[in-house]
């Protein structure tokens, strides 16, 4: 089954709504808590990134018994240097974002850590699409 979420880019307080909702749904569907935790962290990090860097976007979660596939698509500024962005601690977030508790440069590395596969397509000035697969095991 597929779940779709629009992530508003103008309201930081709502960042995480999609992750929270998917978490509830996966719980109801009976997925193990370890899998739900990985999905929740990976998606929440992605959702936060969408809000602070890309003015929102769209999330699609394809859920089946073997795996969960998450697609996060935005039409933001794109990632200039993916290699750097994947390094622990590298961040381009503003001080304002850090004051809100994020922007420590752990987002993308943490998304990678919590997923079994990750791919990032990005084009400057066009947008970014992140795909993550989390196996139900």
């Amino acid at each position, binding site marked *: 089954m597929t779940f779709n979420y629009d992530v508003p880019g103008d309201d*930081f*307080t709502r*960042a*995480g709504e999609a*992750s*929270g909702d998917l*978490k509830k749904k996966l719980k109801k569907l009976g997925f193990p*808590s370890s899998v739900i*935790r990985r999905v*929740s*962290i990976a998606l*929440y*990090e992605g959702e*936060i990134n969408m809000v602070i860097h890309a003015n929102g976007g769209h999330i699609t979660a394809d859920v089946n018994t073997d795996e969960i596939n998450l697609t996060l698509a935005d039409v933001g500024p794109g990632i200039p240097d993916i290699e750097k962005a994947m390094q*622990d601690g590298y961040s381009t977030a503003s001080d304002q974002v*850090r004051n*809100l*508790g*994020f*922007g*420590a*440069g*752990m*987002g993308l*590395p*943490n998304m990678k*850590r919590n997923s079994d596969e990750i791919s990032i397509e990005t084009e400057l000035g066009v947008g970014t699409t992140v795909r993550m697969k989390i196996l139900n095991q």
Partner: protein
Amino acid sequence: MTVRDIIGILDAELLYGDDELLDQEVAHACGSDMMSDVLAFVKDQAVLLTGLINTQAVRTAEMMDMKCVILVRGKEPHENVIDLAKDRDICVLKTEHTMFCACGLLYQHGIRGGEKV
């Protein structure tokens, strides 16, 4: 130790939590104002001590399956924080202690960080 015990140790004010939440057993905690770090490094800690007073403190606790958020330095949470905590069934406490002292007091009473060092 239960969340109810923590209220006594930290002389904390209960902002949200019913009896069931207050009677939950907790053994590990973490303290951070950076939710990025909590999401990256925390494993099975049930309590989050933080000076962050926006909704993301509760959302982070939710994603990490934490049971209780403790706001340090006597900070008042933003208005929608408690509503979110109620909806997500997460206990919220407030203490006048600083982060350092609140963590120290909990450690003194047997709460650990859960790290493998």
